[in-house]
């Protein structure tokens, strides 16, 4: 739930990167952190396992400037992707305003993508949120693996698996090289802000 602080003239918005394990959610935030280092005043917070996997969440606050005189503070979170951490994923989704679903283009990850999206739908329902009503962007990640000869799914297959009903914006990208990472972020920020336009006017 976004919060408007009329006293400080500031709006806080929560955007969560969701998706299957090892899909590139944390790598998206790492790239954003490096790219916008000057605008990000604080360190990225990551709660990781010893094996460097996300245990609870990553957190990165980004200031994007003013709209209608309000400072817009975007708070980016990731969820832990591993199947066993669903209870934690639910907690991170509390009060979410916008979502990026990071899917993995690798053929062998097809089922994990579908299962993760299904579970996201269910988890949102536990917070009384409908996937069709919340701002959502899909990112088909790891296109960089194509040149290494790893079998990837086509964009059409990804759309068929994940976006047939949702019909939300999607980007083919690479979190590791940065391809379409910023475009994904810009899209979800603009969609989320549009959903709040009445409150901001």
């Amino acid at each position, binding site marked *: *739930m*976004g*919060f*408007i*602080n*009329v*006293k400080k003239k500031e*709006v*806080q918005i*929560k955007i969560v990167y969701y998706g299957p394990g090892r899909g590139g959610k944390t790598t998206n935030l790492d790239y954003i952190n490096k790219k916008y280092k000057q605008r990000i005043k*604080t*360190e990225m*917070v990551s*709660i990781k396992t010893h094996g460097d996997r996300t245990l*609870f*969440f990553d*957190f990165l*606050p980004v200031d994007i400037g003013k709209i209608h005189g309000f400072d817009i*503070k975007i*708070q980016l*979170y990731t969820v832990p992707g591993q199947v066993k951490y669903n*209870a*934690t994923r639910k*907690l*991170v989704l*509390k*009060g*979410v*305003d916008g979502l990026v679903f990071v899917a993995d283009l690798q053929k062998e990850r097809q089922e994990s993508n579908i299962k993760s999206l299904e579970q996201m739908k269910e988890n949102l329902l536990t917070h009384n949120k409908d996937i069709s009503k919340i701002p959502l962007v899909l990112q088909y990640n790891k296109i960089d693996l194509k040149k290494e000869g790893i079998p990837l799914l086509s964009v059409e297959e990804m759309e068929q698996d994940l976006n047939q009903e949702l019909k939300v914006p999607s980007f083919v990208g690479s979190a590791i090289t940065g391809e379409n990472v910023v475009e994904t972020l810009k899209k979800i920020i603009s969609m989320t802000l549009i959903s*709040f336009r009445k*409150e901001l006017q």
Partner: protein
Amino acid sequence: MYDVSQEQLEDIDAILKGDLLSIGVHCTIIIDVAGNTIAQIDDGHCTFDVAAFAALAAGNFAAVDAMAKLVGEEQFSLHFHRGESESIHFSKVNEDILLICIFGQDVSLGFLRLKTAEVIDKIKSIWDK
């Protein structure tokens, strides 16, 4: 998205200052369960990153709350971390917001709990306006 009026925020700040900073609490923060910071008052010596603290505190509180439910408790009545020089006390104001106090060894936990109970009642009545 929700908002709170300037008057409500000023009333909350006044309560935090008058009832908690006055007894020696170093920093007090009101956050919502999503991790947004609603109000923050400190004694001028708190230099940590409040946004990151709020995100971690909301996650921490939510995790403890979920653990309570797993063992059949509605909630744990005391949520407190004691450090060598700084300690943190969490309390639930209502379903949406939490009160966090960071304090040193010169404040007793018992007294703080009494004061936070009073503060919670006051904030609730402002919040419900």
